[in-house]
């Protein structure tokens, strides 16, 4: 078991803070922790499936039509998940519904397919998918903690004392997302550079 | 009187001209003079004396080495005691002749007077070259070169530079008051050689007595006039002076002759008169001594080659109770801070300023706040702030595109900069690198052509 493939996505090669893939959904749904986890889990599942399938078929895919094939695989996967969720878990679908179609255009999925699953064994690709999915989820959650607590005065929907009466609405809005994203990225870089310079 | 004119940009630093009323005092010959062979822009002369030689005052010590070059002369009678590298006021060691005086009183000058204006042009130029004349405003460009423009650049106007826009300096001011006839005679000589139709003497309004005097003297002279100018730095820059007096712009990278003008300093004009009428070489000049550290500030006629320390001592020395912090050769804006007072006064030395901490304290550079004052101040209408950023980033090509080579290092931007940024320093570096790069490119081009 190659643990490196599993752990790299969580921190060292975090898809959001380092590779900077999938920033649009990250900013769009990081307004609450529930959304962040929902999106993160959904994306992880899709990533897992697409990575697995693509690494399985990687040898047979003609190089010229690599990307279209990946897109077809990913889109099929996402549509299936969307439909099944709507059919069998309507409550979950109602809260995550709008994010699922977003996953198709989440660059992480195609990015990992192209950068990793394309060249690695199914086992490694699964690990990579889990790691990257976790990294994505963690990054979203980190952004969401700030945005939900500061911007909505809640933590997982539970009102936070002191802040709940006067939340900083900016944090909920798009600019606030960028601020938090930027500051967290800077902090990550700062840590990566070995703390104080 | 003409209307007051000026140029765009520039600024008005405080005058500090305390010595405008002090008549020129001739100083006795010093015991020793150090005469660098390079006191002008261009090739240094070739020495024609050797250690041990006895020289007369006014005897040539070198001969010009090429066209853009000028000889230097012994400024006291005595014996050559050394010929070698000595510190030059510009901060680099260069070949100089050291003469120790005999201490004997100098013979009275023998008045050989010819009517210079009746001499042929070639003879005038020859006498000017022989006298070792260079621009005495500080640029020290050999005078005879300026008087020999190429045939395709006809000169219609000569402007005498009596602007003296540098704060604190009054040497030219005094000269205009005390030797106006020599100056006018010099102007006429220059105009005759260049076949110029008009002659102006540009003087700033802060010298009304000089304007009045010269205006009176020029009354009746149809083609000569005084051009009173608004008080503004750096009006004494050639290009700014031409813009102010004639409203002509010297093209970027060009010379005044490109717009049909030759500019001479008033002190040079007086020296031209001496050289042509009396065949007196350039052995002395008027130097302003000022600053809160000196006992007797004033304007002094000094032998070229006099070490600065001896010059100061001859005027009465420094005040013992005011610590000397900075000595500047030249004016406060473009002058050079001396690190060693044994360097000599040269042909281009217009002033020596001995400053205490009150005047010369070091100011700490902070951060640019983009106030835009440097842009307002730049007489060449450059963008000093952006140029500095480009130079700091070593983007030489962009700096060249923005006209770094047009910078004349007048210091207006650095004077006004509220952040005290060392702008001039950057530009000196930038110009050097850009020129070096150009030369390298030209060489490479040449090598390829071969």
């Amino acid at each position, binding site marked *: 078991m190659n643990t490196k493939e599993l752990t790299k996505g969580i921190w060292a090669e975090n898809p959001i803070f380092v590779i900077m893939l999938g920033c649009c959904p990250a900013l769009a749904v990081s*307004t*609450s922790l529930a*959304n962040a986890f929902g999106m993160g889990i959904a994306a992880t599942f899709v990533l897992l499936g697409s990575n697995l399938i693509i690494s399985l078929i990687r040898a*047979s*895919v*003609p190089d*010229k*039509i690599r990307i*279209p*094939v990946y897109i*077809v*695989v990913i*889109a*099929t996967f996402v*549509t*299936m998940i969307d*439909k*099944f969720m*709507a*059919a*069998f878990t*309507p409550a979950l679908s*109602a809260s995550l519904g*709008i994010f699922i179609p977003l996953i198709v255009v989440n660059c992480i999925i195609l990015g990992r397919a192209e950068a990793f699953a394309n060249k690695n064994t199914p086992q490694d690709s699964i690990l990579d998918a889990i790691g990257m999915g976790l990294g994505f989820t963690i990054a979203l959650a980190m952004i969401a903690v700030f945005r939900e607590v500061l*911007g*909505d005065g809640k933590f997982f929907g539970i009102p936070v004392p002191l802040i709940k009466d006067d*939340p900083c*609405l900016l944090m*909920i*809005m798009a600019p606030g997302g960028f601020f938090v994203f930027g500051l967290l990225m800077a902090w990550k870089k700062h840590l990566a550079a070995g703390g104080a310079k | 009187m003409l209307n007051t004119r000026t140029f765009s940009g520039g600024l008005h630093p405080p005058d500090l001209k305390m010595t405008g009323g002090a008549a020129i005092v001739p100083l006795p010959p010093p015991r020793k003079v150090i005469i660098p062979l390079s006191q002008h822009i261009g090739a240094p002369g070739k020495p024609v004396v050797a250690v041990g030689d006895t020289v007369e005052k006014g005897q040539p010590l070198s001969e010009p080495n090429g066209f853009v070059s000028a000889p230097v002369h012994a400024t006291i009678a005595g014996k050559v005691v050394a010929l070698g590298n000595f510190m030059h006021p510009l901060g680099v060691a260069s070949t100089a002749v050291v003469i120790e005086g005999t201490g004997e009183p100098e013979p009275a000058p023998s008045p050989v007077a010819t009517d210079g204006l009746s001499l042929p042009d070639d003879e005038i130029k020859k006498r000017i070259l022989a006298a070792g004349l260079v621009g005495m405003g500080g640029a020290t460009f050999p005078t005879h070169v300026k008087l020999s423009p190429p045939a395709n650049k006809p000169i219609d106007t000569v402007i005498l530079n009596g602007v003296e826009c540098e704060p604190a300096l009054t040497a030219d001011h005094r000269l205009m008051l005390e030797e106006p006839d020599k100056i006018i005679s010099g102007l006429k000589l220059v105009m005759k050689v260049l076949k110029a139709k008009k002659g102006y003497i540009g003087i700033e309004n802060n010298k009304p007595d000089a304007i009045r005097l010269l205006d009176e003297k020029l009354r009746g002279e149809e083609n000569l006039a005084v051009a009173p100018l608004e008080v503004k730095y750096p009006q004494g820059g050639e290009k700014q002076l031409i813009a102010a007096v004639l409203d002509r712009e010297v093209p970027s990278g060009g010379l005044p002759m490109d717009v049909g003008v030759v500019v001479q300093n008033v002190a040079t004009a007086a020296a031209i008169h001496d050289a042509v009428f009396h065949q007196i070489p350039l052995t002395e000049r008027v130097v302003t001594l000022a600053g809160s550290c000196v006992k007797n500030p004033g304007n002094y006629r000094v032998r070229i080659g006099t070490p600065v320390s001896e010059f100061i001592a001859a005027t009465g020395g420094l005040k013992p109770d005011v610590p000397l912090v900075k000595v500047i050769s030249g004016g406060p804006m473009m002058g050079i801070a001396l690190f060693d007072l044994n360097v000599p006064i040269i042909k281009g030395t217009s002033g020596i300023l001995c400053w205490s901490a009150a005047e010369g304290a070091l100011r700490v550079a902070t951060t640019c706040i983009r106030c835009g004052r440097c842009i307002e101040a730049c007489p060449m209408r450059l963008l000093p702030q952006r140029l500095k950023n480009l130079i700091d980033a070593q983007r030489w090509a962009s700096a060249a595109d923005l006209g770094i080579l047009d910078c004349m290092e007048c210091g207006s931007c650095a004077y006004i900069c509220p952040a005290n940024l060392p702008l001039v320093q950057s530009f000196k570096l930038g110009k050097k690198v850009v020129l070096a790069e150009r030369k390298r490119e030209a060489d490479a081009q040449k090598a390829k052509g071969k």
Partner: protein
Amino acid sequence: MNDLIQTGKYLLIISAIAGLLLAFTEMVTAPRIAENNRLVLEKARREVLPGAERFDTLDLATTDDAGHPATRSLSLGFDAQGKFLGTVQTVSPKGYGGPIDIVLGLKPDGAVSGVKIQSMRETPGLGTKLAEGFLDKFLEVARAGHPVKFFVKKDGGDIDAITAATISSRAFCKGIRDGIKVVQEGQTLIQQRAAAPGATPLPGPATTPVAPSPAPAPAPAPVVPPAPSVPPAPPADPESPPPAPTVAPEPPAPPLPPAIPQGGGQ
């Protein structure tokens, strides 16, 4: 050339597999999804029109904002006794983040009986307050009885906008106005239809309160009222919808007052 055929073949196979999978998915999920949606809508309908047990669909021809013809689907609600309680419809005004789907219940006199937000994509913490404090306050104002101007106060209306979410609030008000307008325009038809079941005897026990789908219209009601030829007759099948509107041009129910200014309460 060979290469081209090869890749084409590959793409074809992949697409075919994907297509098959999707077809299978659709087959399995479509009925369930439809059922889920219907349940949700049903719940909402009952919520916004309290007391209604049975709903009847009526499609109305109307025009959208751009003036193009459009069809609006109304549900007419009846209580267990078959009394007409009002209309329910879904309006979808354009909010800040996309359409806001609002289920709007209106009483026969035009007053708002209930409002429920079905889905929206407004900014969490801002526009989403539509579903929180805003809605309660809105209902309070809307049910207060006096003529209600469904505009935010900034625009001269009676509704308190959500601070910093004026766009959402305005959209919400616009949705309500649109819904009222549709009902007003379709008044005649609605009354005809409402009258029909009322004239009939009580439906049989089949119309139990728990019955989830009492009135799935086998044929959608006509968009433009055709001249109905059949007089009202007692429905043979209690499950079937009431027949098409009666010929009676005079509505038996009192004319609907203009909804916006008057809504004089119960």
